């Protein structure tokens, strides 16, 4: 089902949790809401589900204003971060709950409920655990129960609030893939809240980056990563190095060296240069706009990083640059660094002045 969010705002006392949020969720897509803690992801999700109420704006379910639909009528499958399983019920009864509470006219006969629950348990691969209680399950198993329970009501939309937040990295990874496959099979419109960008980049069709109650950017994982709309997104997604620079005479100045640019830049003043660590290339000390001493070399899995302390107009700045495989540097070496792909943001402004891919 298609869901449209229009101009939604929400405040808690004086605190503005959501500011004029507009969002279109296409039917059948898997959308990730990504943002730092406190950015309003849960709040937005709860308002869509009807578990909370907005102060302004509307939510449309398939074009119909959902204001008059309470939680019961919205048919949303909500998966809570801490599962919220019913502890006094078995796994089976937990999953059957949504089927059993239907009004008598719509309720399926018992044998159909049993059949359906069994199918769901098989679907999420926990058919052997039907008679267990939630306390007797691991975190990953509980998450599967929570998902099966939400799916039991054949929801119009599946809303998942950091479903893998409480699990360890390995389980997260496998559940993530599994969720991706599952979504491919069911094709139910899904919104996944996460503050783990890797999760969002890997799983989602589209990503919504939120910051301070606002939507900062909406786009495919590639767009978000390669073309961050503003400094917030650049900073939040992936690793980034921020360097204070100056715009002067149409060029970018890092200290006393000018960065080679293709076009002339307007204006004069301080700005910030954002660059991904892997877009800093090592070069000749005498030519590169940045120089510094290698402090340490680290190997993380297959990649190596060098901590380079930049001698930067009196200020010391430690950046972490990724080392190309064949480069050999040792702590103490003086090296030059050149930003290959970067963005320049004027101080105080979120919009990018220029970007370069050399």
């Amino acid at each position: 089902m298609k869901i449209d969010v229009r101009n939604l705002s929400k405040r808690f006392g004086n605190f503005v949790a959501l500011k004029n949020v507009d969002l279109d969720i296409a039917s059948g897509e898997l959308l990730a809401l990504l943002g730092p803690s406190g950015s309003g992801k849960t709040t937005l999700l709860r308002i869509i589900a009807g578990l909370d109420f907005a102060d302004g704006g509307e939510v449309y379910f398939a074009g119909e204003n959902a204001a008059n639909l309470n939680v019961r009528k919205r048919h949303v499958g909500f998966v809570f971060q801490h599962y919220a399983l019913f502890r006094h019920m078995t796994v089976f009864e937990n999953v059957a709950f949504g089927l059993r509470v239907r009004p008598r006219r719509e309720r399926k006969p018992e044998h159909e409920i049993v059949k359906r629950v069994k199918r769901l348990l098989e679907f999420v691969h926990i058919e052997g655990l039907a008679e267990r209680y939630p306390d007797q399950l691991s975190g990953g198993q509980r998450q599967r129960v929570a998902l099966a329970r939400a799916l039991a009501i054949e929801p119009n939309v599946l809303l998942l609030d950091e479903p893998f937040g409480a699990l360890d990295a390995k389980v997260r990874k496998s559940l993530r893939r599994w969720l991706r496959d599952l979504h491919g099979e069911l094709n139910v419109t899904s919104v996944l809240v996460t503050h783990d960008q890797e999760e969002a980049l890997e799983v989602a069709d589209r990503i919504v980056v939120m910051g301070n109650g606002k939507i900062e950017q909406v786009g495919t994982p590639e767009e978000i990563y390669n073309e961050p709309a503003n400094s917030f997104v650049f900073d939040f997604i992936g690793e980034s190095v921020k360097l204070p620079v100056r715009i002067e005479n149409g060029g970018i100045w890092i200290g006393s060296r000018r960065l080679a640019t293709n076009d002339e830049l307007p204006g004069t003043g301080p700005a910030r240069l954002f660059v991904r660590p892997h877009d800093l290339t090592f070069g000749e000390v005498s030519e590169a706009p940045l120089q510094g001493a290698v402090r340490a070399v680290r190997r993380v899995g297959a990649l190596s990083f060098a901590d380079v302390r930049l001698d930067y107009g009196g200020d010391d700045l430690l950046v972490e640059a990724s080392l190309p495989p064949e480069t050999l540097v040792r702590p103490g070496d003086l090296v030059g660094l050149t930003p290959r792909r970067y963005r320049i943001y004027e101080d105080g402004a979120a919009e990018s002045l220029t970007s370069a891919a050399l």
Partner: protein
Amino acid sequence: MPPLSKTLRFREPSVIPGFGLTFGLTVTWLSVIVLIPLAAMILYASRLGFDQFIAILTAQRTLNALKLSFGIAFAAAIFNVIFGLIVAWALTRYEFPGRRIADAIVDIPFALPTAVAGIALATLYSPQGWIGQFLAPLGIQVTFTPLGILVALIFVGIPFVVRTVQPVLKDLDPELELAAASLGASRWQVIRKVIAPTLLPAILTGFALAFARAVGEYGSVIFIAGNLPNISEIAPLLIVIRLEEFRYADATAIAVIMLFVAFIMLLIINRLQRWTEARS
């Protein structure tokens, strides 16, 4: 490989020290304070012949007193469960002016000397009293009837239910209710299928405590009950009367049977509680 034999051990190895000390103290303490006096009482009663014991228990006055004591204590505990739940609900779920004061008032029956409570209730509910004057025209007589006993026992029992249910209600994850609602449950279904089962062990505990307290209550009841033999005379009072008549054997026999019945009822409630807890 040798088979792993699972033997029942009294003491499991534990990293937490102090088992010996605390267990020893528990046994000693319980013995001195509870078990030895009770044993002495049973010993004393056992000196009565069996026939004599039965004769005392089946005397009309004894039977009526026992029936009254247990029956009304049970009714009062039921009342307290219902209203105690409502009070606990209101105190935990809603923010209203005077909530803290209301919360404090709940404990008053714990603290007030029961005789004071009895006199106050008797005055209020007498046909001339503040409340009694409205009941009298309706033909409802509270003082000097079993109804009066009920009022007194409800009064002394209410905090037990409120104080056992309240913390559990407070800890109840609101997300459970939201989850149930999002799955299509009506408010009533949420209460019946999600909240009630979670609260049940605490409700049973509250019931057991309120009931136990009501069975043994003496001070507040005797002022409002009128203590008419066979009508509004409770068993604890009958024991005191027998003692004053120097019929110690009679007093002990009644005490033993009260102990026995109370023990059985508490045991049943305890089982029920275990059962409900085991399911969660």
